[in-house]
């Protein structure tokens, strides 16, 4: 068995909610009302080379946070995450994690592609400039080389005739496809998708999912956080169900969708209409609001 591309080991993560009162506020008697919200409560997960893992779960289950911890967009409290056998953003010192240099973290992140819910295309750059930017700024390639990589990447996502468009002149689906091309052009060993279709109009979801599927077929290792159950079922080698900061169920799509064991999984599938149920509540479709997760 080859070493996993991503190895998440007993990861805990909490957020502090509210602001620390200033000295002045404390003097006039304001209390410290900060609360700690535990988002990840001991998550273990390995992703093998070439594997496509879809993470599903209701809003607030911690699935987006887990994804963002992998490339250290979020700092973990404890545990460790290895990408290709290396810690990202930390150094191990006497068994404890200490932050490493920003330069070192940046170097490791080039190997981890990420696609965001809100696309995050560079607004002042055209489609092709968006794909070229990290090739020029990070990989230090020549302009000609960067272009020769960016153009096929955009062609792969079907945007060869939109290269000179600024993001404001692209549809949501087109923006997300540029974002995918931008991440792919860096040739990362793993791609992370953070709810790639949640911000899209329903009629644009298909084109983005088709592109992701196409990339999955090339054998790229992927971890996808999504609300698109049907898509997860079609594309993933493994489904991971999260709830309350923990993985509550995982397995092959046919077993998780066909024979869900955990009540949360069943509730999730019922809401997506993927699980027939005798209960009358299933007839009134509960609207599963897809909200931004922090």
């Amino acid at each position: 068995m080859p070493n996993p591309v991503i190895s998440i080991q007993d990861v805990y993560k909490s957020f502090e909610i509210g602001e620390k009162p200033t000295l002045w506020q404390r003097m006039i008697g304001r209390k410290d009302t900060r609360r700690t919200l535990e988002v990840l409560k001991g998550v273990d997960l390995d992703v093998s080379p070439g594997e496509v893992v879809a993470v599903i779960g209701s809003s607030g289950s911690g699935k987006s946070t887990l994804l963002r911890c992998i490339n250290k967009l979020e700092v973990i409290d404890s545990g460790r995450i290895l990408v290709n056998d290396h810690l990202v953003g930390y150094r191990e010192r006497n068994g404890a994690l200490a932050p490493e240099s920003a330069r070192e973290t940046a170097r490791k992140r080039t190997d981890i592609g990420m696609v965001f819910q809100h696309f995050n295309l560079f607004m002042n750059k055209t489609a092709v400039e968006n794909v070229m930017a990290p090739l020029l700024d990070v990989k230090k390639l020549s302009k000609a080389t960067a272009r020769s990589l960016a153009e096929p990447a955009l062609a792969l996502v079907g945007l060869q005739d939109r290269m000179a468009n600024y993001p404001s002149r692209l549809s949501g689906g087109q923006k997300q496809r540029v974002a995918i091309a931008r991440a792919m052009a860096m040739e990362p060993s793993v791609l992370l998708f953070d709810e790639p279709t949640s911000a899209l109009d329903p009629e644009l979801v298909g084109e983005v999912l088709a592109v992701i599927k196409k990339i999955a077929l090339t054998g790229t290792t992927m971890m996808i956080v999504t609300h698109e159950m049907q898509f997860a079922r079609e594309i993933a080698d493994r489904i991971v169900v999260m709830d309350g900061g923990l993985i509550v169920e995982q397995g092959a799509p046919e077993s998780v969708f066909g024979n869900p064991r955990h009540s949360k999984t069943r509730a999730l599938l019922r809401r997506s209409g993927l699980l027939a149920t005798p209960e009358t509540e299933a007839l009134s479709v509960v609207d599963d609001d897809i909200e931004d997760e922090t």
Partner: protein
Amino acid sequence: MEFIQNVLGVFPSLIRAIPVVAQLAIGAMALALSLGLLVALARLSQNWILRTIATVFVEILRGTPLLVQLVYIYFVLPVIGIQLDPISAGIIGLGLNYAAYLSEVYRTSILAVDSGQTEAALSLGYTPTKALWRIVIPQSFKIALGPIGNYFIAMVKDTALTSVIAVSEILKTANTVNAQTFQTVEIYTAAALLYLALSLPLSRLVIVLERKARARA
């Protein structure tokens, strides 16, 4: 009619002050634009010493009148051995004062750029510093352009304050001509019109630049 002719008649004596105003405004703006950016970055820095120094700088320069600052630079600094010619003192005084205001424009513009831009850059392997310079700051300039233009127009008019430190700009020149000719109404009307003639095209220019910047996105 005769009044208008008289006003027009004193214009040529004021026109020679325009290169001085241009020198002051452009020099001070160059100083304010570059120093303002450094101050803004210091205020956004993780380092509390830098942050404190920058905050103190901004509060002092925003909290005291520009007129007092100019007088201080020109008349007080020589006491500790720093002797400046009037134009240099004017450029430094205006430049420092506007740097304080522009630093706030930059700071809020940088904060106004969506944090997703930084996250995307970081995920692609930019260091935080590189993400700031290559991705965030270029976008913040677009947001800052309008306010910067407004401050530049204000600065052109504030060059009048340097008349008190013996810079031969428009107002000082008008004072001199007035002392010789006693055409008080005509000369100061002409001076006011000259300021207007400088600032109106500038405000048009700001609008055009803003429109251009908006089109490119």
